[in-house]
């Protein structure tokens, strides 16, 4: 059972209050009809499935209800950070340097 920091509640809480919501920063195209079948497939189905730091979404579904983003290492399952939905993809190298 993971331990997750909700950036909205500013609390670190057990995984059972949260729902995983897939890879983050895959924005819905503004005009889907302008996309080729391949581009639309990429949006629908192609996933990074990163081994290591993974940008992903969670929802604090049994809590504040907010969707938010996280970077989690998929090898250790450890969260590197969480941040609010809509925030830009953080640059991990900067974060590491700061630590």
């Amino acid at each position: 059972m993971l331990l997750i920091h909700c950036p909205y509640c500013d609390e670190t809480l057990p995984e059972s209050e949260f729902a995983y919501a897939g890879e983050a920063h895959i924005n819905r195209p503004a005009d889907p009809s302008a996309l080729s079948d391949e581009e639309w497939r990429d949006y629908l189905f192609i996933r990074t499935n990163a081994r290591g730091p993974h940008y992903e979404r969670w929802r604090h579904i049994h809590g504040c209800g907010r969707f938010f983003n996280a970077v989690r290492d998929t090898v250790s399952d450890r969260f590197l950070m969480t941040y609010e939905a809509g925030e830009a993809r953080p640059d991990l190298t900067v974060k590491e340097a700061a630590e």
Partner: protein
Amino acid sequence: MTHFSAMSLLRNALTGHKNWREQWPDSQPKAEYDVVIVGAGGHGLGAAYYLAKEHGITNVAVIDKGWLGGGNTGRNTTIIRSNYLYDESARLYDHALDLWENLSQELNYNVMYSKRGVMMLAHNVHDVQSFQRHVHSNRLNGVDNRWLTKEEAKAFCPPLNISPDARYPVMGAALQMRAGTARHDAVAWGYARAAAARGVDIIQNCPVIAIRRGPDGSVQGVDTAKGFIKAKKVAVSAAGNTSVVMDSAGVRMPLESFPLQALVSEPVKPIFPCVVMSNTVHAYISQSDKGELVIGSGTDQYTSYSQRGGLPLIEHTVAAICEVFPIFNRMRMLRKWGGIVDVTPDRSAILGKTPVEGLYVNCGWGTGGFKATPGAAHTLAWTVAKDEPHPINAPFTLERFTTGRLIDEAAAAAVAH
């Protein structure tokens, strides 16, 4: 290769088992192969075996980052069945079943394929409709699968609780008699031994770091921890790690890797005669030939490469088992473990050619690819040898995610009212 038989066993017993030979040698990579297969699971080893046996291509290396069979082949609940709904799937899995039937003899390795029957429980009207649909479709596809009343189900599997008061009462079941289990490790070892006997190199503890492509885009070989290995054809059969390997060839995949857990109980005398699956309650169970109850759990919600998994999920699984089989409440869990399964959007495999010349892929089996091992390996070998789809694997392309021609068994069983 020493032929295995009761006689050879007896002969060796009399000489203190000193004369058994290696089942496969500890190969070191050569500079070049005709075909390199990434991943020494059942699928990869099987493909190598069929390449050698049926296509005469023996200059083949199977490369694994760890010990052979240490991926999902070595950690699955070994359920084998072919009563799938769609023609494409039924054909593929039934082809595998045909091969399972004689696999021990073919490989001269007892893989203990046990046709104990797989029974799938229906707990609500929707399940009944869905399973009936399977039964009918299977019948017309020539795949064995029949409907049991709940009393028949109980007679077939006495530990089953069919009380109408259960939270999820059993309303009937679909039974495939030809289905069952096999000894997971023996499948990997049997293929490894038989492939090695035909000249295939099995290279362990050698992670493939990248697939190298030439200026024209075609495959040139693989970079590994033991150096570059040249090959015009590379087949990736890396299960949970497929995305990472394919990414190195510049091919992005419609895959996500999740931790999937399983567990065994302490061993007991025979009590459970078949395999039972309940999708609604999320319980999968059989008894192994060593006596443990082998129980499958679900995937954790998040992607992971950690081969671990959480406790709550296991608690749910065990509760589900005890709901359906209340006599097991005082049994004890001996061990639980995790594997990494790669899941496609339609939960069917991707099997065959890729947009890259010389690159083939066999992945996306999710929680259910052990049963397909001989079938997938057999048809992949064909595709690699001939550079064209086998009629059976032809529908399982990558293109289907572009065109929308998905093979979605899970969606077909979708629960909604």
